[in-house]
């Protein structure tokens, strides 16, 4: 198949449709608008497909709760403040064990923040922004091609685990154009959706989509079942990329757009003879703990580079358990780190830890 030049937001929509998503429920917010706009153009042309512009992000995520419960592949998208509003619904979706794909094209915060690219939703994505004991996969693509591949896979993963999956791209991923190829994805063996509310037809007991359990013993049992599922995700779904790690004295940890800048930084510092490498988390949850723990013996320091005031650094520190000093370099509010500043920070750290 040939490559097409596409804007990130539109490519995400095209990938979802290719993965069998026929229902989209959204609400306008910058910088993700091209995604719902794309779906509003395309879904009405698909048999049975529907696009609904909801009255709010809260309504949109609850429409997802309904559509997913009825057994459909469905998607919603938003950006940071809108994602905050969706957290209630995401908690219910996780609690009721429904598959859904939710895209966050994130922007600067807190509050209304700004509309420029940011990675300040790391905590919101990975810590469970809603109430209760729940987890969900978080894919963080660094290119539009990777975004397309991960969205397609996300639908299978969501169905497999009966759990929501978040795909997070900063505003850069949503807004820029890159060549993409829509490759046939490797399909997972998926269980039948015999739990979906498609009507009893008088032939079976009613199916109930629910997250309420008033008996604490029953609720604990449910939570333990969910935990086993999350454990399985931690064992099977962690994904990351290592870049020029061999003999590295400083290892950067960076994801999404920031990892692209950091990749250039690694090359530039290597050209200067400074031994650095990068670990790029592709799943933010589950976080690639083992990858961080397995940095080469030569590693003297870790540097988490983020478009935030320091969020992923917490996971880096949890992973390394104090064995190696871990530092943070970040720009926020929509400011994008420049290679020179990251290089300077790396040199400063290496000077200090020698």
């Amino acid at each position, binding site marked *: 198949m040939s490559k097409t030049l596409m804007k990130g937001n539109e490519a995400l929509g095209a990938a979802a449709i290719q993965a069998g998503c026929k229902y989209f429920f959204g609400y306008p917010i910058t910088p993700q608008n091209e995604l719902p706009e794309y779906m509003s153009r395309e879904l009405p042309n698909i048999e049975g497909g529907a696009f609904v512009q909801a009255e709010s992000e809260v309504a949109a995520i609850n429409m997802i*709760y309904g559509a997913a419960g009825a057994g459909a592949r469905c998607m919603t998208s938003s950006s940071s403040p809108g994602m905050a509003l969706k957290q209630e619904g995401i908690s*219910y979706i996780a609690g009721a064990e429904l598959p859904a794909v939710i895209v966050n094209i994130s922007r600067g915060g807190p509050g209304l923040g700004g509309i420029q690219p940011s990675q300040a939703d790391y905590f919101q994505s990975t810590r469970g922004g809603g109430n209760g004991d729940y987890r969900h996969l978080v894919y963080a693509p660094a290119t539009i091609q990777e975004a397309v591949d991960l969205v397609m896979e996300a639908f299978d993963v969501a169905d497999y685990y009966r759990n929501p999956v978040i795909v997070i791209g900063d505003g850069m991923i949503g807004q820029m154009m890159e060549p993409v190829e829509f490759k046939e994805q490797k399909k997972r063996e998926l269980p039948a959706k015999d739990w979906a509310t498609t009507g009893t037809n008088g032939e079976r007991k009613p*199916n109930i989509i629910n997250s309420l359990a008033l008996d604490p013993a029953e609720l604990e049992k449910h939570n333990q079942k969910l935990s086993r599922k999350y454990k399985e995700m931690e064992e099977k779904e962690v994904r990351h990329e290592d870049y020029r790690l061999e003999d590295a004295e400083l290892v950067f940890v960076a994801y999404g757009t920031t990892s692209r800048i950091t990749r250039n930084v690694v090359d530039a510092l290597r050209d200067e003879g400074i031994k650095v490498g990068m670990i790029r988390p592709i799943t933010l949850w589950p976080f690639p703990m083992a990858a961080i723990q397995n940095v080469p013996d030569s590693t003297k320091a870790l540097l988490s580079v983020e478009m935030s005031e320091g969020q992923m650094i917490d996971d880096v520190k949890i992973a390394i358990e104090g064995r190696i000093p871990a530092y943070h370099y970040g720009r926020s509010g929509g400011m994008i780190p420049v290679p020179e500043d990251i290089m300077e920070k790396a040199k400063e750290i290496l000077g200090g830890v020698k």
Partner: protein
Amino acid sequence: MMQVVYEKTKGLTDKQTHYCPGCTHGVIHKLVGEVLVELGVLGKSVGVAPVGCSVLAYDYFNCDMHEAAHGRAPAVATGIKRVLPDHTVFTYQGDGDLASIGTAEIIHAAHRGEKFTTIFVNNAIYGMTGGQMAPTTLIGQKATTSPYGRDKATTGMPLKVSEMMATIDGAAFVERVSVHDVPNIRKAKKAIKKAFQVQIDGTGFGIVEILSNCPTNWGITPVDSLTWLKENMIPYYPLGNFRTPEEGK
């Protein structure tokens, strides 16, 4: 020979309800269950339960059910109906759920003309949480958060949901009924049936507001509560049809 003179509708499960003695939720559940059976749609019905006294309604209706977050049932029903346009979808919501936290969802579902049916049970109080003031609580009515009686000056007038819904073009059927006595229960059933028929015909959104009681939180006996409903709620919330597809024909 034994003869069956009364049979529970197949529209309800055999589960014993948790409702307080004298509460009319049971009557309303029965009416909805009977209507689903009489219209022949029970097997392809999907209901959405609210948060409130009827939070466990998903255990009582004998069809596929969703339990929604507080106020979000119309959004959940929208998602279901868009996926299953040939199914019969309904929400069952109380006044705290629909008229307070879920006003945006109910208005916009009606506004879009979503083809599902809403059973709106108005008993002028938050029942499950222990008798707090609702948007529908009457002026002067005492509740745990209006201990001196609802004051218009600080809490506004009780919200008239049916009148509000009647202003929305997408709401094809809007009727307010009561279940304080047998003749009104019969009228309520007719309205519920019409509202579901409107959905089946694909005409648009339908809502039936059902005036109901709360002996527990009103602090009176079941019998007195029905009299109180008749004497206090109906004068403020007039019964009748506000919109029907036959209009203008």
